[in-house]
């Protein structure tokens, strides 16, 4: 691991980064004849915040949906903690230690925040002793700034609070690795700063994180490492500063005008 090459602005995690927590080998996913992911190989280092970026249609969401078990794999392997989880059911993958958030969280409006959090607490079946501050629904809600809304119905929550709830729901799975799918899309500047603070706090609990994000300031201030996808292939990976300076990345991601 090129540890010296990733001096991210965030503090180093409490737990030492011990190799890859998630490894994807030659992953191919196709919708009919269209290959959304075409032989992608990459690994996510334990204890880090990794940014997953790329233009629209580059395969970011497909990658998240596939590793979390919601899309069928056409070829390749997915390993979590070194164990093969290729083709496993989504709920089994949650049990194995990987949780994900949704960009548009559609929670039942007649459930309260407490009830939503109770679902992963009851069903994800994970050992909670590792995360002492996140042992029950009330603690998780408070951690995510939802304390005062604990008994409110989801139908009454604001977009920002629904985003927080979505992160809280994923945290209630007690994951080792958390995949955040555009957690900040559509939020105001103030709100996104708050959510960034929340992501840092999650990381300090010793949870490895992958974030899909379009906002470059989020990537540069949060991530230790960046992975760039383009047209379903891996374009670049490395420290944010290095990757974002890369000519090919700038052309693919920002457009040729910016790259000049």
């Amino acid at each position, binding site marked *: 691991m090129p540890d010296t090459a990733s001096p991210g602005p965030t503090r180093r995690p409490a737990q030492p980064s011990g190799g890859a927590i998630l490894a994807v080998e030659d992953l191919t996913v196709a919708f009919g004849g269209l290959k959304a992911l075409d032989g992608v190989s990459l690994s996510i280092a334990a204890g880090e915040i990794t940014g997953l970026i790329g233009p629209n249609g580059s395969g970011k969401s497909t990658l998240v949906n596939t590793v979390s078990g919601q899309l069928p794999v056409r070829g390749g392997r997915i390993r979590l903690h070194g164990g093969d989880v290729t083709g496993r059911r989504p709920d089994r993958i949650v049990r194995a230690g990987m949780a994900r958030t949704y960009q548009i969280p559609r929670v039942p409006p007649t*459930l309260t925040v407490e009830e939503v959090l109770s679902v992963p607490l009851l069903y994800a079946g994970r050992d909670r002793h590792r995360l002492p501050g996140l042992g029950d629904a009330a603690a998780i809600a408070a951690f995510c700034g939802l304390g005062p809304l604990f008994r409110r119905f989801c139908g009454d929550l604001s977009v920002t609070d629904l985003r927080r709830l979505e992160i809280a729901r994923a945290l209630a799975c007690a994951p080792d690795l958390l995949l955040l799918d555009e957690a900040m899309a559509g939020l105001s500047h103030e709100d996104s700063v708050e959510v960034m603070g929340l992501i840092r706090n999650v990381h300090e609990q010793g949870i490895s994180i992958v974030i899909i994000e379009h906002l470059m300031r989020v990537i540069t201030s949060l991530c230790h490492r960046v992975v760039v996808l383009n047209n379903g292939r891996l374009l670049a990976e490395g420290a944010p500063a290095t990757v974002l300076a890369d000519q090919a990345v700038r052309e693919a991601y920002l457009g040729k005008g910016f790259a000049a």
Partner: protein
Amino acid sequence: MKTGLTRLLPYVLILLATLALVWIDKPFWIQLAIGVAITAITALAWDILSRTGQVSLGSAAFFGIGSYTLAIFEPLIGLALAWIAVVVVCALAATLLGLLTLRLRRMYFAIATLGFALSMQVLVVVFPDWTGGSGGIAPPVLADGDPRWQLGLIGLLLLAAVALSDALLGLRFRPAFFMIRTKPELAAASGVPVVRMKIFAFIVSGVLIGLAGACYGGLYGYVVPTDVFTTNWSVLPLAIATLGGMDTTIGPLLGAIALKALEEVARSVIGGTGYQVVYGAVIILFVIGMPQGIVGLLRKAAALAGRRTAAGEKKKERERHA
């Protein structure tokens, strides 16, 4: 949220009503109560299934399977085992139908379950050696034909259905079921084994309706396919649960009482078969006018009354300060 007392209310009401009717022993009221109880069980069962987003139009299949299973198995393996066979066969049918319709959404699911119910009726007619064909079959008479004991037994089954419905509205199941209904991917991403939970709800629902059907067949000891497999038994549970209030236990109970009362009033005022038109029209009006059902209406009234008392108390408070 809910106090222990309101939780106990349905149980107490069912117990008291059953005992009172058995005590009074008026045939008309006992028959009416049996009708209410059987439809209430099917409505509770339908509601349990709908909480997972599976809006079924196939209740009649399980109703008929229940009554036919009891009738077919009783001569072969005896009464007690035949009742167990009802549970097993309905659970198997529910598992099969649940797996076949797993990927179907809303309308397509409803149509597939309706098709299942209709094909069951055809199946019965196609194998007359086993089922008696269109001529019908004779299941064992429930409680030796004593209506009071029949009501008592069906009342017990209703209590079991109420208890199951309540258990499935508890913290263990309700949030997971609702999450499966709203967004199954989100439930799976929270660790819920979605397929297993949907099949589980299907089994609970199917077995309850099957047991209700077996009781119904045992009322007179005679069953014909056009009676137990009619679309009526598929639509009625849905109409009652919607009328009473979905996602609740008390809703289907109130709905069943309201619907039977409406049916009896329409029958005596209009008579003939014309009453069914009026009765249908009233159901439609209720469903359009009160999507939350009777329970929703009561909640609104309670909220209104609560606001009024709160306002009144505030007023008193102000007067005291003045």
